[in-house]
């Protein structure tokens, strides 16, 4: 019996039990659709994060204290912070660097009359806004005067503006921050919610000098943010920073750095890894549901073999060999599972479109995952079809015919 004939037989057998065939494939449909939606969401998120990171400016670098353990490394605590002299040295020595800004962050409570709001406070140099390519929607950014005078002036995000001043114009208004009163000179350009669900407009910027004097009570700098002259010179800038900082921090040749120059590409990679791991985990869950779907198919195929024992007997009586019977049931299982795979791809694609629109993610259809999921569903059909098909093929003709 040739393959096309078998395929025709399988399809007509499945059509005879339309509803059941459809329900049987459901497990595989859900599995495949889940794989595709997960992959699409993962790819969409990665795409979004990548876009967001490149919006930081791809030529932005961050210098943080601490060794190779990274931001969370063990040597962070013991490694010395930076100073204003470091900032000046970088500006002076590193010609691949364009702007330099100190950066420190704390959580604070801000109060205006009855209203109070908890937010993130950043102490930054005036160059910060140029580095982040961040402008203001109202008023002005912090400037050199603010920095030099350690002025009690600030730029606030839209969320803070709404929380404290409601619909009123916040410019030149005052509010209490920590233990002093502060004047609003600008409202930062709205950025919306980040890929990780953070409200990027919920913040207050103070001049770094004010931040140090009034909040930290110290002159140290937690991290230095830098933009390079051009994206092409990023590696050069990293090198210059490294050798300068090693020299300034008196690290002997051969000893490890007690600081680290972070590059946005690196952050991007790290985030990529995180979303990659998540995607893999979710895909694993989806794969398990595919296997469960396969077991569903096996179950129904076993029922079908039992129900159709007499049919098998008749087929054997008129000349079917056991391999013909095996082929018939195996192909039926494969048609079922690949039908499920196909429906799953269609539904998964549809769902991906809907979900990515709802979550405002870029639509990234995972064509490779579609192919793999479909191939996997076929494989599931073979694996879980073999057992019922062998059961059918091993029947002895007379016993099958006599089966009640």
């Amino acid at each position: 019996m040739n393959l096309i004939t078998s395929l025709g037989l399988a399809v007509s057998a499945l059509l005879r039990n339309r509803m059941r065939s459809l329900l049987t494939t459901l497990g595989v449909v859900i599995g495949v659709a889940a794989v595709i939606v997960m992959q699409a969401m993962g790819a969409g998120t990665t795409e979004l994060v990548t876009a967001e990171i490149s919006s930081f400016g791809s030529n932005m670098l961050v210098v943080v204290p601490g060794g190779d353990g990274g931001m969370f490394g063990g040597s962070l605590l013991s490694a010395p912070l930076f100073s204003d002299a470091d900032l000046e040295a970088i500006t002076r020595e590193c010609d691949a660097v364009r702007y330099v800004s100190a950066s420190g962050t704390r959580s604070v409570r801000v109060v205006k009359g009855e209203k109070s709001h908890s937010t993130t406070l950043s102490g930054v140099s005036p160059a910060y806004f140029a580095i982040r390519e961040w402008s203001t929607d109202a008023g002005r950014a912090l400037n050199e005067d603010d920095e030099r005078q350690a002025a009690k002036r600030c730029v606030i995000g839209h969320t803070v503006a709404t929380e404290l001043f409601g619909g009123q114009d916040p410019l030149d208004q005052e509010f209490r921050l920590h233990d002093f009163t502060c004047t609003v000179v600008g409202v930062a350009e709205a950025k919306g919610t980040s890929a990780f669900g953070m409200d990027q407009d919920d913040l207050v910027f103070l001049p770094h000098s004010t931040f140090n004097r009034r909040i930290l009570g110290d002159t140290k700098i937690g991290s230095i943010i830098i933009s390079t002259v051009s994206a092409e010179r990023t590696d050069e800038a990293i090198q210059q920073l490294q050798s300068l900082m090693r020299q300034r921090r008196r690290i002997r040749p051969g000893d490890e750095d007690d600081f680290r120059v972070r590059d946005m590409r690196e952050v991007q990679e790290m985030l990529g890894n995180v979303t990659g791991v998540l995607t893999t985990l979710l895909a694993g869950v989806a794969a398990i549901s595919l296997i469960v779907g396969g077991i569903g198919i096996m179950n129904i195929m076993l029922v079908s073999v039992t129900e159709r024992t007499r049919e098998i007997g008749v087929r054997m009586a008129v000349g079917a060999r056991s391999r013909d019977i095996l082929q018939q049931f195996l192909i039926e299982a494969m048609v079922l599972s690949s039908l499920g795979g196909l429906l799953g791809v269609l539904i998964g694609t549809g769902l991906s479109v809907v979900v990515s629109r709802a979550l405002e993610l870029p639509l990234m259809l995972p064509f490779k995952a579609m192919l793999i999921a479909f191939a996997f569903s076929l494989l599931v059909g073979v694996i879980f079809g073999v057992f019922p098909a062998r059961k059918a093929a091993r029947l002895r003709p007379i016993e099958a015919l006599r089966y009640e």
Partner: protein
Amino acid sequence: MRSRSDAAAELDAIEERAIEERAIEERAPPLLSLRGVTKVYGQGDAAVHALRGVDIEIEAGEFVSIQGTSGSGKSTMMNIIGCLDAATAGEYRMEGELVSELPPDVLAALRNSRIGFIFQGFNLLRRTSSAANVELPLIYAGVPRIERTRKAYAALAAVGLAGRERATSSELSGGQQQRVAIARALVNDPELILADEPTGNLDSRTSAEIMDILTALNRERGITIVMVTHDQEIADYADRHVFFHDGQIRSDTRDRDRVGVERRAPEERRA
């Protein structure tokens, strides 16, 4: 010590056997030949001796009826002849070839090309058109689709079902269903049709129609028919009548007017 006459008798016997064997070689072997065939179902105390040594030869072109009490082993023998089941002991030959030694796939091919089955319960595939049912043996014979359809339509026409090719079993009467089954049995040009109570589920008028078709297949196409029945009127369509009792053949007679020779039943021969 052996006497001279013993030795002479032995020589005679050898010679006789040689002559017999030569005679057998010259004669074409019968289509079917069963020698000492037994069938035991189950084991030990639960064992059922369905066949207790059946000897029978059936020549090509015969129309044989098998009768006997319920449980006497008729269906059991039919299943063995049809290569659906194997004998416990004894020899079953088809055209001289020992069937019991053939592998399952060869038996399947044998059923496909040389034997057609007709069952009491029709055994058609449910929710399947009559044409598709009739095509079944051709599928396993590897006949191409167009040829299959042509042959199936021809076979259905031969049993008077032209025009009902697309009807499924639930849309056909019992008699029509049995005709579909006959069409399926003859579509691949078998030499032998095995019918186990083909009219068992049908009224007498429909039975007569079915028997007319079977008789025509035997007379006009020379297909050998072996048919089990409980009905003497149905058995009368056959030319040779075998009676079973308790797993053995009790009598085996041929209608004189058709074949012209009356054979003695095995018991009489042995006596």
